[in-house]
C-alpha cells in the first residue's frame, strides 16, 4: 500500500471525526434555536452574540464534569457503552461520500474514506451495531428506567432495521449496486430516486426517525416516562459521547437520504456539492421540525406501525418494483 494513500485516508478520517464532532455540537445549538423559534421563544441568547458560544459552554461543562460510575453498575460494560454508540456512528460514515471528488493542485481527492462495493449495506450494518450502546448501557446501569429504555430500544431498533432493509431493497434492485457512489450516479441521467420510489423514501425516512431515536419515536429516552432512559446514570463526557453519537447519526442519516433518494451531489459539479449540503441541511432541519410539531407515539403503536403498516407496504413495494422491472 502506498504511503500517499495511507496519509490521505488518515487525513480524511481525522477530518470527518473533527467536522462531525463539531457539527454535533453546533447541531444542538440549531436544535435549541429552531425549537425555540417554533415555540415563540428566543432560545440561548446570553453566551456570545445570539448565544452562538453556548456550544463552547456546553462543551466545557461536559468535559470538566465529574465522571461518576455508580455503585451497582457493571463497570466495564457501563464504561464501554457510550463508546460503542459514538464509534459506530463514525465508523458508518466511512462509506458515505460527503462531497463529489475534487482536485487540489492536481491531486484528486475523493471525499469518501473507502468506496467499498457493499457501501450502503456496510453503513446500515454498522449503524445497527450502534444500538448496542443504548442496550448495554441501559442493562448495565442498575436502574429500572435505564433497563426499560434498553428493552424498548431492543424492540424498536430491531423492528425498524427490517423496515430500513426492505425499503432500500427496491431502489437497490433498480440500481444493481450497493455502492453509494453508484447509487448517486444512477440519478444523474434519469430523475431522482424519489420519483421512482416514493414509498421507499417515506418508509426509509420513517425508519430513520426510529433508528436515530428522534421525536415521534423518541421512546428510548422519553423524558416524561423514563427520565433519560439509558442515559439516566451517565454524566459528563460519557453522556456526551451518547449525545455526539445521536447527532452524528442524524447527520449521516440525512446524508443517506439525500444521496439515495434526492440526487446526492448530482454530476459532481460545485453546484451539486452545494445542493447536497442544502439537502442534508433540510433533512437535519426536518428532524428538528418534527420534534416541535409531533407528539410521541406509544411503544405498542410504534410496533403496530412497524409490523402491520410499514413492513407490508415495503414488501408490496418490492413486489411491484420486481414486476415492473421484469416486464
Amino acid at each position, binding site marked *: 500500500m502506498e504511503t500517499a494513500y495511507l496519509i490521505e485516508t488518515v487525513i480524511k478520517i481525522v477530518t470527518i471525526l473533527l467536522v462531525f464532532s463539531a457539527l454535533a455540537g453546533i447541531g444542538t445549538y440549531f436544535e435549541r434555536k429552531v425549537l425555540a423559534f*417554533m415555540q*415563540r421563544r*428566543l432560545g440561548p441568547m446570553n453566551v456570545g452574540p445570539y448565544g452562538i458560544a453556548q456550544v463552547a459552554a456546553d462543551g466545557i461543562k461536559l468535559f470538566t464534569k465529574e465522571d461518576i460510575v455508580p455503585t451497582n453498575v457493571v463497570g466495564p460494560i457501563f464504561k464501554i457503552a457510550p463508546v460503542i454508540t459514538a464509534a459506530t456512528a463514525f465508523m458508518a460514515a466511512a462509506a458515505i461520500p460527503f462531497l463529489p471528488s475534487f482536485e487540489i493542485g492536481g491531486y484528486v481527492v475523493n471525499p469518501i474514506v473507502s468506496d467499498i462495493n457493499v457501501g450502503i449495506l456496510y453503513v446500515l450494518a454498522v449503524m445497527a451495531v450502534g444500538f448496542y450502546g443504548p442496550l448495554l448501557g441501559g442493562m448495565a446501569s442498575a436502574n429500572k428506567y435505564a433497563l426499560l429504555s434498553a428493552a424498548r430500544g431492543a424492540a424498536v431498533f430491531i423492528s425498524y432495521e427490517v423496515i430500513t432493509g426492505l425499503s432500500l431493497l427496491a431502489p437497490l434492485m433498480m440500481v444493481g449496486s450497493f455502492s453509494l457512489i453508484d447509487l448517486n450516479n444512477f440519478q444523474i441521467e434519469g430523475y431522482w430516486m424519489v420519483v421512482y420510489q416514493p414509498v421507499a423514501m417515506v418508509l426509509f425516512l420513517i425508519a430513520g426517525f426510529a433508528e436515530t431515536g428522534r421525536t415521534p419515536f423518541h421512546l428510548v429516552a422519553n423524558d416524561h416516562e423514563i427520565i433519560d432512559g439509558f442515559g439516566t446514570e451517565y454524566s459528563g463526557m460519557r453522556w456526551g459521547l451518547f449525545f455526539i453519537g445521536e447527532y452524528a447519526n442524524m447527520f449521516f442519516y440525512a446524508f443517506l437520504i439525500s444521496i439515495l433518494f434526492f440526487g446526492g451531489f448530482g454530476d459532481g459539479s460545485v453546484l451539486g456539492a452545494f445542493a447536497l449540503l442544502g439537502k442534508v441541511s433540510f433533512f437535519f432541519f426536518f428532524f428538528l421540525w418534527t420534534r416541535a*410539531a409531533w407528539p410521541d407515539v406509544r411503544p405498542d403503536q410504534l410496533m403496530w406501525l412497524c409490523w402491520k*403498516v410499514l413492513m407490508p407496504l415495503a414488501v408490496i413495494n418490492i413486489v411491484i418494483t420486481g414486476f415492473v422491472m421484469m416486464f
Partner: protein
Amino acid sequence: MSKLPSLEDFKDRNVVEGSAYYDVDQREAPTTGMEKFKQVVNRTFRFELFIGLWVVLREMIKFDIHTVSYPAEKLPIGPRYRAVHEMQRLWESGTERCIGCGLCEKICISDCIRMDTRIDENSRKEVTEYTINLGRCIFCGYCAEVCPELAIVHGGRYENVSEQRAHYTDFNDMLTPMDMAISGKVAEYPGFGAVTPHEDERIKTTPLAY
C-alpha cells in the same frame, strides 16, 4: 340542542339522554377490522401530520417572539402589587411621614416590624428605630393598609436577594431619598384598591356573551 339549557337544567346532575350535560366529541371506536383499516387510511391521507408541521413553521416564519429577556427587560407590575415596603416622606419639606403610632407593629401578623419612639424636645413623638425584617415578612399588606399617614406603603421592588440577613432589615433602603422628596419626584401612593392604569381599555366582554 334546540334551546340553551337554563341554570336549573345544569343543576340536575343526573346525566341522562336529553339532560343539559352531554359528551363532547366522543366518537365511536372502530370495532371490526375493516373499520379500523378505514380509520387508518382516512387519517393517513388527510395528511393531518402536515397541518402540525405547517403550524410550527408558520410561527417560526412570523417570528413573533414572546420572550422577555428578564434581567435586561422587565414586565411592568400593577400598582397593587405588594413588594418591598417604601417609607414615604412628605413632599417639599422632606419630613418623614411616620408619626410613630405603632399600628403597623401591632397589626403585623408575622411580627417582623419593630419600632422605637421617644418624645423629642418639642414634645413631639419621634421615631428613633424602625426595622422590618423582610426575611420574615409575608407581604400581606396589613401594615400599609393600617397606616393612617400613608407613611409605609408597598413598592414595586420584587428582587430582594441578599448575602446577609442584616440587609433585609435596612430602613434606609426603604426610606425615600431626601432629594427625590424635595424635588417632588416621588409618585403619590394611590392607595389600596387602586386600579392598574389603562385598565378600562383592557376590559373585554365575557366570552359567554358571544
